[in-house]
Every structure is written in structure tokens, then in C-alpha cells.
């Protein structure tokens, strides 16, 4: 079983990227589980026909941990992708990091990984590693490899650098290693050079590049991934290429 996490600044396109990777992996015949670790809880909506899944935190709040079954927490999306949304607290109240921890603990307690036996688990994690909860997906027993999505925009690069520093700081703990950076183009000036400089600064590689394309927004309007909505498009091929690069980076870690 391969587990990797995708981090990056909010709004940079993590969920779109991750969902397309999940769909591409499913098309390749693998059983995939995608876990959204973002209070917005929209990581998996394009795999679910635009529908928002009930979050684990909502279930915990409504019914209590003891009466929740594994089946309640998962939704089956495109290509059989097992979709989970951790969810989060009311904006401005509560603790989003704690919500991630609680959701992942509950999945573990309910035997999700053993019972569902996915080939690949992808954690889609919000923004900076701002507290302990956001580092849980990169801990031992969870993701083995972390990828960071960024554009060439300064704020995005700043967030990516912070995440890379956190991964480096956790290296001695046996946590996930940094697998590389994914450039999601916003077509800013010198974008490729800036992101390559970042990769160089944090001693990693550019594992893939995605063009800015209206096809992505068109698919989103349809409540689908590009892989599902426009499988023959150039963007779909870019996502498949990224999927292969990411898996190669993860497999080298497994080896």
C-alpha cells in the first residue's frame, strides 16, 4: 500500500490535482482512497459528481464516535475511489488540526485501512503545517511521501517553503520525506524558474507541471474531474503523466 500526502497553500489547486490523480489511478486499475484533510471538506466533490460528502467530524458531532460505522464515513466516487472528508469546526471556532486527528484516529479505530485495503491512499491537506494536527498525515503509519503543490506566486511559494521546512524538521522522527514539488501554473512571470529555485533551496525536485487550462474549470462546472469529463484532453494527459511521476517517486521510497 502506498500512502502519500499533498500539501499546499489554500486555493492553489490541491484538491483538483489530487482528485485527478485519484481518477487516473483508478483508471489504471488501482483501488484508491482519498482523504480530504481540510475544514472546507470539498476535496472529493469532483469525484462524487459535485456532491459534498458528509464529514467525519459532522458524524462525530451528530452521533458520537461509538455509533459510527466505517460505511458511514466513506463515499464511493468515480472509478470506485473511496472518498473521505475529515471536515472541521465552525469557522472561527474550534480546532481544525484536532479535527484531522480525530478523523484519522476514527478511520484507524474502525479498521478502514485493513477492511478497505486500498492500493493507494492520498491525503489532501490544507495549507501550512500550522499545528500538530496538520502534521498527522505525514507521521509514521500514514503518508510515506509528501508532495507540495505551488504556483509561482510569492505567497504560494512562501507557504510551500514553510511546508518543506516542516518536513525537514520532522525527518529525524521517521516521518514522511519530501517527494517533490508540483507546479500548478498561474502563468506569473518567471514561474518555472521561481519554483525550480524553491525546489533547489529545499533540496527536492520538480515532480510535475500542470498548465493553466480552462478545461479544468469546465470539468469543475460539471462536478467532475478532467479525467472523467475530458479524458482525451491534453490536461487529462498531463494529470496521467503527473500520476506516473508521483507513483514513481513513492515507489522509489518503498524500494
Amino acid at each position, binding site marked *: 500500500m502506498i500512502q502519500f500526502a499533498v500539501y499546499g497553500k489554500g486555493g492553489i489547486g490541491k484538491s483538483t490535482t489530487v482528485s485527478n490523480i485519484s481518477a487516473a489511478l483508478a483508471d489504471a486499475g488501482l483501488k484508491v482512497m482519498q482523504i480530504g484533510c481540510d475544514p472546507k471538506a470539498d476535496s472529493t466533490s469532483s469525484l462524487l459528481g459535485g456532491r459534498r460528502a458528509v464529514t467525519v467530524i459532522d458524524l462525530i458531532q451528530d452521533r*458520537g*464516535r*461509538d455509533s459510527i460505522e466505517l460505511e458511514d464515513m466513506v463515499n464511493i466516487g468515480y472509478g470506485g475511489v473511496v472518498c473521505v472528508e475529515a471536515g472541521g469546526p465552525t469557522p472561527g471556532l474550534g480546532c481544525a488540526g484536532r479535527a484531522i*486527528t480525530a478523523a484519522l484516529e476514527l478511520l484507524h479505530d474502525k479498521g478502514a485501512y485493513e477492511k478497505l485495503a486500498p492500493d493507494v491512499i492520498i491525503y489532501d491537506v490544507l495549507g501550512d503545517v500550522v*499545528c*500538530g*494536527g496538520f502534521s498527522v498525515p505525514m*507521521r*509514521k503509519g500514514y503518508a510515506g511521501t509528501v508532495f507540495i503543490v505551488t504556483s509561482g506566486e510569492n505567497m504560494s511559494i512562501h507557504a510551500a517553503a514553510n511546508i518543506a521546512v516542516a518536513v525537514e524538521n520532522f525527518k529525524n522522527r*521517521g516521518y514522511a520525506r519530501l517527494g517533490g514539488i508540483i507546479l500548478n501554473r498561474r502563468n506569473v512571470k518567471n514561474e518555472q524558474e521561481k519554483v525550480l529555485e524553491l525546489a533547489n533551496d529545499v533540496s527536492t525536485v520538480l515532480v510535475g507541471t500542470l498548465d493553466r487550462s480552462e478545461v479544468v474549470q469546465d470539468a469543475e462546472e460539471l462536478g467532475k474531474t478532467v479525467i472523467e469529463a475530458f479524458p482525451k484532453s491534453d490536461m487529462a494527459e498531463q494529470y496521467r503523466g503527473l500520476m506516473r511521476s508521483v507513483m514513481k517517486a513513492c515507489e522509489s521510497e518503498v524500494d
Partner: protein
Amino acid sequence: MLKRLGEKPDLTQTTVSVGEASYPAPFETGLEYAAPARGVWNIVHTGMLVPESHEIFICAAGCLRGVVLTAAEMGAAERFSTVAIRENNVLDGDMEELMIEGVTDILNKLQRTPRAVLVYTSCIHHFMSCDVTRCYAELRRRFPNVDFTDCYMDPIMRKSGLTPDQTMRSRLYSLLKPAPVDGMSVNIIGSDLQTYPDCELVQMVQQSGRTLREITACKSYDEYQLMATSYLNIAMYPAAKAGCEALCERLAHRCLYLPFIPDYDDIDRELELLAAALETNPPDASALRALADESLFKARAIVGDAPVAIDYTALSHPMELARLLINHGFNVTDLFLDSISTADRDAFLWLKRNYPSLRLHPTIHPEMRVYPRDERNTLAIGQKAAYFCGTCRFVNIVEDGGLHGYMGIIRLAELITDAFENPKDAKIEIQPKGLGCAGGCCL
């Protein structure tokens, strides 16, 4: 449910007749009151049952007060240490380093290295998503000759999953290392108090040629580790059942749950289960029933028509006990409990049908702080019943008191007689925490 000071207390919430009581929760829950009857063991007492161990609590200083006082009161301060968490640890994100370095510092300063360390983390570790797994890995690397286990002082876990009591009893056996099973020994799991040696359960195990092991009787860590060689684990106390099952699953032992239910048919059923597990025969039930009847009627003759009150901290199945005593002529009038267990449901329905006026009282409802406590002629079974009745005639036991089977009932009848004939000073007897711990086998 806060009320203006000076208002007359509303005692209507403190009593409901069994005929009108709902199952399983006869009273509203909310703000909780704790009566000063403290004999039930807490996580500090129970953890101390691991011989040659040391407890380390890691939490904010304000939360440490209770556990520090417990350790001091039971005379176990030298087996107890604390690490205080401060705000800067939360802000600096060094909670995990504090845990590792704090425990390391304590162990380096102890004159004698303990064989095992029970580390109690707290709510704040939970809230902060601390990677305690990593901390234990590092501590095990630094102290390869010390066994560490994770324990919890985490009230936020109370309303879901296992209760703190169940969790503590489970963690108590987490230190047992897998060992070849010998088939010649049997464990009692999760009871804080040593099982009454005359009871049929103990006798049957011994007569089958096997050794009975209980953590309460273990004098050394090596002796404790021998519990891993037993083929059969028996849980008798309800809060011990989950831990016993987890242990059996981990070590591939057989598991039996044989609680002390003061009902003859239940006792027979349990003794048959035990006999099958021991591949022996159960004792002669009719003779034992006759002995139990005789003891109860003898006690009844002494107690007479005095009102009898029972609380759930004395015996886990207070409604079954009420039915048994009523059937032997006792004038049972009051039960103190906050909920009715599944195992007590049958007795509850029986009491509802046959003795609907029997009074039920909560023990944690806030209005119980002003409960009149003027039923001084009552014979109480249990500390809370004694406190709320204000009586000095009481059976001073907690957590089933090590009783089991017919001999448990016979022993209880003796205790009832003694309690009635020899009044005690309740204030002195019920205030110390952890009845049976200080000076007992856990030290």
C-alpha cells in the same frame, strides 16, 4: 442548571420510586456532584498494582493536584512523579520534547530504576495531537531495561469509547509480554481487590491443580510477568471486561466474564462455565444455596426490620442484591445509583413489578449535596449509601469487595451482621481514597 444562591433546594430530583423509574437512566444528567465517600479506586491506585513500577503524570499543574494527593495519601509518593506542562510548551510546540526529557530526567534521578513506567498523558496532548508514539519509541531507546506503557488522565474521553476506569484496567496488563502458555495457571484480570479466598471460584481453580494469579497478589514484576503464561483470564469486575478481552486477544488466552451477581441461578451458570473451562465439575449448588440461605436468614434475624440501603459502588449489581435481600426478608428501602446496568435489568423489572415503592436516588445529581442525610437507623451497604443516609451502621466495601459466588453472599451476610452490631465512624472510614489500597498489596 445554575440556580440563585439562597433558593430552597429542589429535592424532587433526588428520589424516584422504582415503579416510576425509567431504564437505563432514571435521573437527568448534567452538572455532577461528588459525595465525600472516596473508597472507590482511581487511576493512581490501580496503576500502583504493577509491582516495581513508577507512575509519571504529565499535565498542567492545576490538574495534578488530585493525583498528587492520592499518591501521598496512599503512601506511594516515592513511586510517583509529575511533569508540569506550561503555556510556553504549547506555544513553543515542545510538548513532545518535554515528555521525553521530563521522563528521562525523572528516571535519571531516581535512586532505583523501576522495572516499568506508567506514563499518564492528558487532555492537552490529545488536543495538540502530540505524537506520543514517537515519545515512547525514544524513551524505550534511551531506557532499554525499562518497560513503558501509555496511560491516560484524559476526561474528554469519558463520553465515548472506553471509560477512564475501563482504560486503566486495560493498560494495567499492557506490560505483559507474550510467553509460552503453561495451561496450569489462571488469571483474575482487572479487580483492584484480592478475590475472597473461600469463594468457589478460587477453590475450583486450586482444586483443579492450577495456580490462580492476580495482580493484587504479585509481589514482584517477574511474578506479574508470569500472568502472561496463564491459559485462562477471568474478569469479575464489569469495568475489567473490556481489558480482559483485549488481553486475551493479544496473548491468545481464553476469556471468561464471571461478575459477582448475587443471584443463585446466575451463580450456578457462572460456576458451570468455569467448570467447563477448567475441565472439572461445578460444586454442589444445592448445598451452597442452603448455606447462603441460612447465612442470609441469620443476618435478617439480627437486622430485623431496619431499613436497608444499597449503593452501586459497593456492589456492581445493586438491584440483584436488593432482590436477593428482599427475598430473604430484609426491608430494602433505598438504592443509590446513577444508572441501571444491562445485567441489573431483570432485577429492575422484578422490583418494578413487586416493590414499586422502593426508592432510587442518584449519587451525582447536584441536589444530592443537600439531601437530608438523616436516616440514621438505616443499615447501609456501601460508602455512598452510608453517607447519604447519615448512618454509622454500614458495610464498608467498594468494587464488589473481592466477593464472588455463594461464598461471596455468605461473606456479605457476615459483613451485614457485623455492620449492624458494630457501628463505625463514617466520617473517618469513608473519606480516604482507594479503600483497601493503603498498606495493602499494591505497596
